[in-house]
């Protein structure tokens, strides 16, 4: 396994899906999907269960064949190429280690089936185990390892043959929180170091945000938004994305007027300016979104604020999470860093400020 740093060439496509559709009997798992994954990137397919993210991964691996469309890997059409001839390897959700082989034999498996000499494959398998810090466990059986250790072995096995693309199907789902955080950092570091394209499937948006170069958020067999983590978080394409990624206040609002660089809306019993042209006609019922950490109770922008009564306060260590009941009855959650300042009292009335560039409008 080479440890030289390979720099990704940002423009080159390594996996391409062109109009791929997958139907199972009466159920359509994937609808005409177009997707380009670039060489060397950490790409994540994110979405709730049943959104088609695992199906997409299985199509790339070759476990399923597309009902329609084309799948290209490294410029080659693999739509009808069987799994074992594709230059991709998978890390399975349950690791799928071979129970009758030792850890070392498991890792050497991809080399064994490629008829690589025993000396070389043992050396490379040991190097791969070394890479995941499992070199001391080569003689064990998978059943003698903990979940986290099995995870590492599965990773070594998938990496030993240096695939062009590594597919990871919720690989951290079975680990406890602390271990998961550790593995996230390690996976990300390893991906940078090896320069291998990672296609990662998860339903955990935090995991996706912290690891990915780009994320495709999926719903009902379609990509809702494909963007960088910051793009998804700060510029959600619609209410679904805003709600799925992170926490969002969704406040009912009515458009009052609309011009080229701002929209005036009526919400929370007052009028607020929302920057940007949203194309909504006056009188339209919309949803206004704002992240809790962008709400402020120190009025920085006195022009754009609304009054509310503190209904609930939650202490979460680094932060304080406060829920306000606004004059029109809507609920606004605000998050403030725990800076040591005195928290407001329950029942206290405060003016909450909203910066116009932090507010977003979505049609209802």
């Amino acid at each position, binding site marked *: 396994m080479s440890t030289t740093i390979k720099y990704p060439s940002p423009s080159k496509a390594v996996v391409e899906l062109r109009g791929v559709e997958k139907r199972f009997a009466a159920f359509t798992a994937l609808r005409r999907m177009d997707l380009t994954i670039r060489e060397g990137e950490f790409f994540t397919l994110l979405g709730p269960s049943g959104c088609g993210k695992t199906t997409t991964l299985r199509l790339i691996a070759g476990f399923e064949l597309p009902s329609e469309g084309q799948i290209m890997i490294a410029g080659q059409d693999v739509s009808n190429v069987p799994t*074992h001839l594709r230059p991709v*390897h998978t890390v*399975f959700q349950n690791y799928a280690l071979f129970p009758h082989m030792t850890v070392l034999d498991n890792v050497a498996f991809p080399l064994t089936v490629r008829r690589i000499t025993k000396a070389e494959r043992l050396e490379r398998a040991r190097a791969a185990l070394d890479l995941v810090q499992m070199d001391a466990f080569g003689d064990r059986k998978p059943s003698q390892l903990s979940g986290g250790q099995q995870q590492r072995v599965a990773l070594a096995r998938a990496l030993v043959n240096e695939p062009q693309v590594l597919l990871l199907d919720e690989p951290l789902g079975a680990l406890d929180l602390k271990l998961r955080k550790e593995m996230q950092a390690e996976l990300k570091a390893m991906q940078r170091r090896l320069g291998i394209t990672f296609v990662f499937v998860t339903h955990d948006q935090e995991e996706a945000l912290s690891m990915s170069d780009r994320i495709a958020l999926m719903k009902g067999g379609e990509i809702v938004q494909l963007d960088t983590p910051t793009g998804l978080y700060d510029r959600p394409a619609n209410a679904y994305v805003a709600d799925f990624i992170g926490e969002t206040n969704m406040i009912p609002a009515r458009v009052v007027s609309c011009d080229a660089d701002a929209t005036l809306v009526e919400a929370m019993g007052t009028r607020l300016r929302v920057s940007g042209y949203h194309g909504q006609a006056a009188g339209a019922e919309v949803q206004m979104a704002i992240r809790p950490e962008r709400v402020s109770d120190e009025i920085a922008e006195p022009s754009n604020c609304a009054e509310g009564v503190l209904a609930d306060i939650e202490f979460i260590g680094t932060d304080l999470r406060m829920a306000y009941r606004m004059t029109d009855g809507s609920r606004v959650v605000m998050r403030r860093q725990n800076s040591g300042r005195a928290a407001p009292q329950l029942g206290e009335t405060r003016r909450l400020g909203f910066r116009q560039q932090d507010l977003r409008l979505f049609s209802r």
Partner: protein
Amino acid sequence: MRRERREQLQTGLMLTPSVLLLALFILLPLCVVFAYSFALRDPYGAVLPGFTLDNYKELVQGVYLRVLMNSFSLAGMTTVLCLLIGYPVAYFIAFKAGRAAPALLLLLLIPFWINFLIRISAWVVLLGRGGLINKGLVFSGLIDEPIGMLGTVAATLVGMVYAFLPVTVFPIYAALTPIDRRLMEAGADLGAGPAETFWRITLPLSLPGVLAAALFVFVPSMGVFAIPVLLGGGKDIILGNLIVQLFLEFRNIPVGAAVSILLLVVSGFGILLYMRALRRVEAMK
């Protein structure tokens, strides 16, 4: 204390019928056979009390050794054929049949509801000169005259495989179904073609079932007598019909008992081998 004793008593009471049944109908006859194998006989075939090793000495003769070899080769061939035919069947039911699997397993069981001798007699009819198979072959023009199939080793093997195929399929099926299919997907994903995935993953993981199947076929095959007589014409004497002949025709019960004990020892040895092999296979996991 009292409750414990009562529970012990209850367990004992519940086990009594089966223990009595086993002791009366299996253990006791076995002891009788064992005792007979050391007994003497008068010229008319009556068993005389006494102790001699002559019955066993007789077994060392060439004739008996050949019978033992015949039995071994018949049981061996039956086992190999059953595994070769039964494995694909079990594989198909376990992985490819889908919702039809329970129905297929039931179909395998149905012949057990018909008397064994009747089923073998059906094969006599099928394989005979005027039988369905010969008629079909002549009719289709593949052969000009009926072939004499009955009384051959092949006919015996057909009957043996027919009789033991279900007991081959079931243990292999039971070993295949719990195998996680993702292991096979992982094999393919890591670069192994279908044949190699089978050879390196599926087959090793199903070995306990294969061993059990081999045992279930081999041990009873050593003792069969009806199939070789009815279908094979009884030309090659094997342990099963030797015992029948010694008991019923030659009325040499002591030697017959000695052969029975020999069969028991051979079968027991087979079971021992199976248990050792199974332990090694299980240790792989």
